[in-house]
């Protein structure tokens, strides 16, 4: 009938009226590897969640054909039974269980008496590991003994055990070393030779180029194109990924840039759990008064970790020197940073930004509460008056100034968090993904504010994964990749292609 194993037609999924993906097609033949490419937020994960029935049949529109039959799965169990297995970017291992126990989690072989049959389980686990050429792994040891790369392979063994016909790898190499990556890629090639199909999602385009037969590119939730890899190269993929118009959202008014106010030298941070792995690797940069410094890079490039280190909240090991106004400063806790005039709006608003049960107003004044006290007591009236000023200034839409902040929309919460971090009157303001998950109107307000702050002489360090945003408001752009600083460009004639190529670690020719 059909020579396709999987066909997804015209898949559309919306969240409260906002289309996350719109009319996407994806086809996979037996024994074929399809590369799925797109920027952060393009809709790759949403598409895979539709496929694996994280969003069950009926919550999206379109059609999925699996081995020629329509697939109407209601949960992940059903798609796994069909043979579709996803391996997620973050490893889903139970660290204290053994390798074998992880592989068979939820499907443990049992003895007749109903106990786990460890002998059979370990023997079968060893067989699987042998298939993966990983015979040196002791399946009876807890998983935490092994590196991220080995754990990734255990994850694949788990998929094999489920008789996967289609393996979906979502950024499988983001935490792997070069040699581990090579092992993984070789393995995928071998699976292909045995007739297994694979969808390979990765920002690392050289990996895609190496193993994919076909490449599908999506952007902003829409289908851009599907072409055989033979007709493509990485430059062409990059162009397809970013080729969109710049909307005129950004105000980049001319402003004076002064002397160097903040300087970071040889910053290195190590992972919290895997103490050998560097998440930020020898990064140095400086930022001037009134300068907006954008930090671009793909997810996992080490940007958030760098910001954390500068703000004093990185929990892992770290080293490097930091200077403010030419003097070395030692920031061990966020409160030291705030006192010195370095403020940060964190990336994860829910976990690190808002104090959910407290009023919007009390959230705003949290870092400067002492200002409103007299004789040790808070002068409620003075505080409330300031809160009202801030709410008006930041255009926070709230019914009452003391309504719990959790009841506001994401954009308004973000404005309040930004207001909180502006009250200490910072010299350096670090914004980590300041517009993530907020609507266009609120985005515009934030861009306007950044430009205003720059005019007042604040140095703004803005981390963003939205390329147009970085190019739209930065004076200078740092590009990070795999923890290293891979580019430091003045934002004049800078293109998305150039930035993305630097982020991926693959300088391209001007012709692209």
């Amino acid at each position, binding site marked *: 009938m059909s020579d396709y194993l999987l066909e997804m037609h015209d898949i559309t999924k919306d969240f409260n009226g906002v289309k996350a993906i719109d009319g996407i097609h994806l086809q996979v033949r037996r024994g074929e590897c399809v590369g799925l490419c797109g920027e952060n937020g393009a809709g790759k994960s949403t598409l895979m969640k539709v496929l694996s029935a994280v969003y069950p049949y009926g919550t999206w529109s379109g059609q999925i054909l699996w081995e020629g039959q329509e697939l109407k799965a209601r949960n992940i169990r059903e798609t796994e039974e069909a043979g579709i297995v996803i391996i997620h970017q973050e490893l889903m291992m139970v660290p204290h269980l053994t390798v074998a126990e992880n592989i068979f989690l939820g499907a443990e072989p049992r003895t007749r008496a109903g106990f786990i049959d460890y002998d059979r389980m370990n023997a079968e686990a060893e067989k699987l590991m042998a298939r993966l050429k990983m015979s040196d792994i002791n399946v009876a040891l807890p998983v935490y003994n092994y590196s991220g790369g080995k754990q990734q392979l255990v994850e694949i063994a788990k998929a094999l055990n489920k008789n996967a016909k289609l393996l979906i790898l979502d950024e499988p190499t983001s935490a792997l070393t070069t040699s581990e990556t090579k092992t993984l890629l070789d393995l995928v090639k071998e699976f292909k030779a045995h007739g297994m199909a694979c969808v390979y999602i990765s920002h690392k385009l050289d990996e895609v180029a190496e193993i994919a037969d076909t490449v599908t590119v999506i952007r902003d939730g829409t289908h851009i194109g599907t072409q055989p890899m033979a007709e493509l190269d990485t430059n062409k993929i990059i162009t397809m990924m970013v080729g969109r118009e710049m909307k005129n959202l950004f105000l980049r008014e001319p402003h004076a840039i002064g002397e160097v106010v903040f300087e970071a030298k040889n910053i290195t941070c190590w992972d919290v759990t895997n103490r050998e792995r560097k998440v930020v690797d020898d990064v140095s940069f400086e930022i001037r008064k009134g300068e907006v410094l954008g930090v671009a890079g793909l997810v996992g490039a080490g940007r958030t970790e760098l910001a954390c280190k500068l*703000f004093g*909240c990185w929990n892992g090991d770290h080293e490097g020197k930091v200077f403010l106004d030419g003097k070395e400063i030692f920031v061990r*806790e*966020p*409160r030291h*940073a*705030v*006192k010195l005039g370095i403020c*940060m709006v*964190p990336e994860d608003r829910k*976990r*690190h*930004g*808002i*104090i*959910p*049960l*407290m009023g919007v107003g*009390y959230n705003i004044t*949290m*870092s400067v*509460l*002492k200002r409103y*006290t007299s004789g*040790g*007591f*808070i*002068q*409620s*009236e*003075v505080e*409330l*008056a300031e809160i*009202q000023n801030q709410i008006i200034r930041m255009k926070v839409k709230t019914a009452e100034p003391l309504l*719990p902040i*959790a*009841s506001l929309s994401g954009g308004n919460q973000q404005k309040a968090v930004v207001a*909180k971090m502006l009250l*200490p009157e910072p010299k350096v303001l670090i914004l980590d993904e300041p517009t993530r998950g907020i609507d266009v109107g609120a985005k515009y307000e934030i861009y306007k504010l950044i430009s205003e702050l720059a005019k007042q002489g604040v140095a703004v360090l803005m981390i963003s994964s939205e390329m147009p945003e970085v190019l739209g408001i930065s004076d200078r752009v740092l590009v990070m990749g795999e923890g290293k600083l891979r580019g430091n460009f003045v934002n004049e004639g800078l293109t998305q292609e150039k930035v993305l190529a630097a982020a991926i670690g693959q300088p391209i020719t001007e012709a692209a």
Partner: protein
Amino acid sequence: MTLTKKDVRKFLSEYKIVALLFIIVIIWAFFGFLTYDSETGTSQFLTTRNFSNLLRQMAITGMLASAMVFVIVAGEIDLSVGSLLGLLGGIAAVADVTYHLPLWQTITLVIVMGLFFGLMVGWLTAYLGIPSFIVTLGGQLVFRGMVLGLTGGITIAPVGPELRYIGQDYLPGWLGNSGGVLLFLVLAALAFWTRINRQKHKLVVPSMTTEVGRLLFAGALILGFLLTLNSYRGVPAPVLILLVILGVFTVIGNKTTFGRHIYAVGSNMEATRLSGVNVAYVKMMVFALMGLMCAFAGLTTTGRLAAGTPSAGMGSELDAIASCFIGGTSMRGGVGSVSGALVGAVIMASLDNGMSMMGIDTFWQQIVKGIILVAAVYMDIVSSGTQRN
């Protein structure tokens, strides 16, 4: 159907304290009815004497609950307060009976020791990162062991009359009355001062009638309270101490940066830390405050029993914790009030008192109290359901 359910939720979350007062009224009416004596035409439960007793019974639990609220709001728990109360009460008895220290020295010693142990527990929790459940579970054993060692396992008696006064005596009527008048004047002055200040900053102010109405209501409460107690023997000294604590702690919770930070830490510790607040210090000081309240409760217990006993305060941490939860403190942290916890303590004491009066076995009393606690927390879950949706 769904509408009514929602309405109940909304009412419960917005007027928790009203709901609690309503529960007190039901409990009192219930026991009043059951202990009604048709010959004399009075109810044994609803007498001024019993009201006074009830307040005295709840005073010690109330002192512990006042600080326990802050501990729970900050997202922690303290299981060691019963033992610490016993230890500090024991220290007070030894200082008084064995060493004949003057009262002020005894009190100073006990308060210093209370703060010391509280800071210790707080430091282990906040700076060394040992979960407070474990630190205070250990503390429970350590402190109880120390009392046994200190007293040699026997009752230390009799303590001097001054110390007894703290636990047993009553304020003369004139003093109680003038205190009440003073309190009313302070409340009135505060209300109008706030009003003027708000107007100065162009903030919305409630209408004059609401303001006056509120004050009159507070005045009526104070008056009723004093008249009831004075018609028996006056305001009991421990109750006075508790009321002062209520006032001070309410001010700490609402009017100081420390208080604001306690609520913030409990609601989202990481976000609070990233706002530049010294969260470890806040947590440690919360435990120090708890230690201070153990000192007050220990002194009162020793005064009331006129002796230091090795078993003093046994199990009172659970009463204090239960009072907080019944009084609307959220076990998830970030929400709770001292006044609510004290109302919770009144509910617990009313149940104890009423059931004892009816001659119900202690085992039944424990069963009932346990069920009430679980039901109260369920109520909290139901009422906070609106916030999550």
